[in-house]
C-alpha cells in the first residue's frame, strides 16, 4: 500500500525551481531514502510535505487523502512526525520535558485537559519514558537539552518525533554533524525503527543510505533522476554523473 504520494509537486522560488514536478511514492513499511547533491531540493521537498512551505503546483496525498496546502500544525494529526536537519529542540527544557510536550499532544491536548495538574497524566509520562528508552536517553532525562552532546541532541530530536506515536517518520539528515561512531549508533537505531515505522529519510552519507534503504530516490536540480533499490542506484550512470560532476 502507498502511504504517501506526490503528484507533479513543484516549488518555485522566483526563477529557481527548487522542486520540479516530483512524483514520489512511499510504500508502507519501507525505508525510503531521498539522496542528491547539495541544493538538489531534498529539504524543500520535505518542507512541502510537512506544510512548512506551500507548493507552487502539484498535489500531495497521504493514504490517498489530499493534504496539499495543509498548515504545518495540522500535519502531525495525520500521524506524520518529522525530525529536522538542524537540531530543533526546546533548549532550556529538560530532555524529559522536550519529549513530554510531544507526548502530551498525542495523548490529551484538547480542552480542559491542559489545565489538569501535569502529574495527573501518568499515561503521558509513560510514553515519554518509552520514547527516551527507545533512543537510549533514559539516563539523561533530567538534563537540560542544551547541555546534551550534539549526538544526543540528534537522538532527542527523533525521540520528540516518536513520542507523538506517528505512522510515518520523516527524518531530515539524522546523521548530520555526527562523528563516525555516533553515525554508526544512529544507523543502528534507524534500522531498528524501520521495523516498526514507514520512514522517509534524507541523507548525504552514501554508506548510510546504501546499507539501510529499501528504496532510494535520487534528486538533482529539483528533479528525480533515478529511483530503485540500492544495487540499482549504485549501478546507475546518471547518479554517478550527478554526484561526481555535480560537486562544486
Amino acid at each position, binding site marked *: 500500500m502507498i502511504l504517501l504520494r506526490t503528484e507533479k509537486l513543484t516549488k518555485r522560488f522566483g526563477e529557481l525551481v527548487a522542486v520540479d514536478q516530483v512524483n514520489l511514492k512511499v510504500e508502507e513499511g519501507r525505508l525510503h531514502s531521498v539522496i542528491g547533491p547539495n541544493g538538489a531540493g531534498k529539504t524543500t521537498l520535505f518542507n512541502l510535505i510537512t506544510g*512548512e512551505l506551500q507548493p507552487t503546483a502539484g498535489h500531495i496525498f497521504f493514504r490517498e487523502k489530499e493534504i496539499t496546502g495543509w498548515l*504545518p*500544525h495540522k*500535519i502531525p494529526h495525520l500521524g506524520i512526525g518529522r525530525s529536522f536537519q538542524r537540531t530543533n529542540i526546546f533548549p532550556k*527544557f529538560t530532555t524529559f*520535558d522536550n519529549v513530554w*510536550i510531544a507526548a502530551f499532544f498525542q495523548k490529551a491536548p484538547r480542552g480542559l485537559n491542559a*489545565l489538569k495538574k*501535569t502529574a495527573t497524566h501518568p499515561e503521558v509520562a509513560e510514553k515519554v519514558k518509552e520514547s527516551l528508552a527507545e533512543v537510549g536517553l533514559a539516563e539523561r532525562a533530567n538534563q537540560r537539552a542544551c547541555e546534551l552532546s550534539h549526538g544526543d541532541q540528534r537522538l532527542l530530536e527523533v525521540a520528540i518525533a516518536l513520542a507523538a506515536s506517528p505512522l510515518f517518520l520523516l527524518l531530515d539528515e539524522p546523521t548530520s554533524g555526527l562523528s563516525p561512531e555516533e553515525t554508526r549508533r544512529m544507523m543502528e537505531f534507524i534500522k531498528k525503527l524501520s521495523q516498526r515505522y514507514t520512514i522517509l529519510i534524507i541523507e548525504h552519507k552514501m554508506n548510510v543510505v546504501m546499507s539501510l534503504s529499501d528504496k532510494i530516490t535520487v534528486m538533482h536540480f529539483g528533479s528525480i533522476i533515478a529511483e530503485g533499490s540500492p544495487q540499482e542506484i549504485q549501478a546507475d550512470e546518471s547518479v554517478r554523473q550527478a554526484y561526481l560532476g555535480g560537486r562544486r
Partner: protein
Amino acid sequence: MVSQGQGFYSRWMPWLALGVVIVLLPFFVRPAIATVIWIFAILAVAFNILLGYTGLLAFGQSTFFGLGAYAAGLLLIHYKVHLFTSLLAGTLIGLVAAALIGRICIQRLGLYFVLLTFAFNQLFFFIAYQWNKLTGGEDGLPGVPRAPLQFGSFTLLDLSQPFNYYFLTAAVFLLSLAAMKWIVESPLGMIFQAIRENEARAGAIGYNVKRYKWIAFVIAGGFSGLAGVLYSMLFGIVPLDTIHWITSGDVVFMALIGGIGNFYGPIIGAALFIWLSESLSVIWARWPLMLGIAFVVVVLFFRGGCMEALERLWGLGMEKLKPGSR
C-alpha cells in the same frame, strides 16, 4: 517543569514570605501605596505569562487594565453594583477585549506584534480621552464608590477603611496569583513555554501556536481587567493615565526589573517600582532617571532581574557558609 519535582520548601517558601510581607507592608508605607503595589503585582505577573512564559512582548497591557477600571467605575457609579459584580465585570471586559484585540495581534510576529498591541492601546486611550461624557476625558472618571463586601444585608468588611481595602486587595492578589501559578504549572503553561523556546518546533509537533498565544493573551487580559477594578475603587477615581501607554511601559519595566525568568520575579519588580516612584518622586522630580539606570544595569548584568541577583547573592552566601570553603 514536569520533570523537576519541587521540594516542599521551595514550593511554599514564596507564599510564606508573601504572607509576612502582606501583613507588615502597611506599617511601613501608606496603606494606599501598599494597595497599589499588589494591584500592579497582579498586572506584572499576568504580563509575565505573556513575556516570560510565552515569549510575547505585549506593549499594551494598560488597555485591559484601563477598560476594567472604567467598566467597574461606571457600573459602581451608575448602578451601585455589588463588589463581586464589579470584579467580575472588569475581569470579563478584560477577557473579551483581549480576545478581540489578541485575535488580531497574534497574527504578526516580533516587532509587528509589539506595535499592534501598542496601536490598540493608543486607540483605546484616545477613545477614553475623547469620550468626555462617559469617561470624564482628561479629568478622569471621579466619584467611584467602594462597594462594601457584603452578603445580603450582612456586611463583612467596610471597605471605606483603608486597611480593610488593603486586605481585600491583598486577598484578590493572592487568589489571582494562585490561579496564575496553577496555569503556568499545568500542561497549558508547558505549551506556552514550548512556544517561547521554539515556536516552529511546537508547531511541528502539532500545537496550533497562534491559538495558544491567543489563550495566553486572553488570560493576561482578564487578570489585567481585574486589577483595573481594584484600582478604580482605590482612589475613587479612574484617571486617564490608567489607560495610557506609559502604564503599559511601567508594567513591562516592573516585570523586567523583577525578573521574567521567575514566576514571582515581577512581584518584586512591581513593589520596587511603586515604592521607588512614591518615595523618590516627592524629593526628586527627575526620579525616572534612576529607573533608566536601573534598567541599563538589569539589561547588562542581570538579565534575570532582581530574582537572579537575589539567587546569586544567596548562592554566594551559601558558598561562604559551607565548611572548609575559605
